């Protein structure tokens, strides 16, 4: 399983790493109990500072997706975010939908777009 990062992406690198890992968890590619590589390994592979990856792992840990155990490294803890506040979940969705409306897509196109993304997200993991 691989994590892809893009230099042209506007998100900061740590965010791309955290989002990439979340997407793999959501798709079921990364399952509960699986061990992630060490911060040193990911930073070395990418050629970036250790802190960048450490921040991404810390964010995932705070959101409850990772458990960091001494000696065992970072382990996937759960497929569900601790954050269940509906408002907080709605905000990024609203931002993304706004982008699509501003890009000139109509309702049906947006629905199709969202459907395809959801299918892509779930294709590896099968059922939720």
């Amino acid at each position, binding site marked *: 399983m*691989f994590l892809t990062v893009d*230099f042209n992406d506007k998100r900061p690198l740590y965010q791309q790493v955290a989002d990439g890992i979340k997407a793999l968890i959501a798709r079921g590619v990364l399952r509960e109990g699986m061990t992630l590589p060490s911060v040193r390994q990911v930073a070395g592979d990418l050629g970036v500072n250790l802190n960048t990856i450490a921040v991404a792992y810390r964010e995932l840990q705070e959101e409850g997706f990772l458990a960091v155990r001494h000696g065992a490294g970072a382990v996937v803890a759960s497929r569900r975010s601790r954050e269940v506040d509906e408002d907080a979940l709605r905000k990024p969705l609203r931002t993304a939908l706004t982008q699509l409306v501003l890009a000139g897509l109509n309702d049906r196109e947006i629905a199709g777009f969202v459907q395809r993304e959801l299918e892509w997200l779930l294709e590896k993991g099968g059922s939720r």
Partner: protein
Amino acid sequence: MSAEGNAFLPLASASLVLAVRLFFLVRRLWDYPLNHGPGFFLGVAVEPGFYEGPGIRWLKRYRTLLLAQHAILVSAFVVPVALHRWNDLPVMAPVDVITFFSMIGGFILWTRRRLGASPPRLSSVAVTLDARRLSDYISWPMEAMVAAFLAFSWALLFTHGDLHFRWQWPVLITYAVMGMLPGKIILARYSFPLPPERTEEHHRWLEANRRYSLRVMESMRWFFVAILAGYAVRHGLPSGKTIWLQWSFLAVAAAAFLLMTAILIRGSGQLAAMGRDLRPVGSWAGPFQPARLMLRGGLAWSILYCAGLAALLVFFGR
């Protein structure tokens, strides 16, 4: 042992090593720059039609250097044989390592400077999320066994060594064996960001490459360890009663050598087939780091290792 007996073992093993190296030259090294297809020359991306134009000259330079390196190796065999200095035949091994690393490695670095000073920078790269641990690649119990055999050989030579043995071989072999450990660690830890296209294949190829190099080094180390143990037994224990032990270590050394040869020939063929239409390492730069051909620390280790071997050879040759 008689003079003929003394000559037989070093001569037979040196001939075998030379035969394998010449076979490897013809089968694998001759066309090595073309391993990744006509789009690359030794890890550098080249323009279409390169091999009809300047590529002919580059290939000629590479092959001339390769022949020169093998000529030195052949001399390291022929000169002691012509002078009947059988005990000097093992010098072939360090001479081969030093000249191969410096001449071919130097040529690869020079090629990159002249042909591929600025490889394309990929804006998007991938990394594996499979955890790698040192113990996945290096067996510490095996390392302990290597250390135990070396310690046994040294203890035997120190306490029971006869008047005929020469310290230069135990020192050289111990250096060759122990000096490879940092190289193995560097190899086990090396990493590159992967291209976003055909990521899985690039990853599999790089992993196979890593395991192949580690296996070659491991079998080479066991070959040396068995040679040293056999040498220590020969010079440290009464020969009448322990001849079977000498032959046992010799058999282990022969097995390790055959294993290394099999890995070298089969493994390099498989790697060439796997990587035929993949990008070679060093032909791309990640968004956050320059293109790397060598492993981080690999260049420093090779220079230090070869310099140490050369220094020992010069010191003992005086």
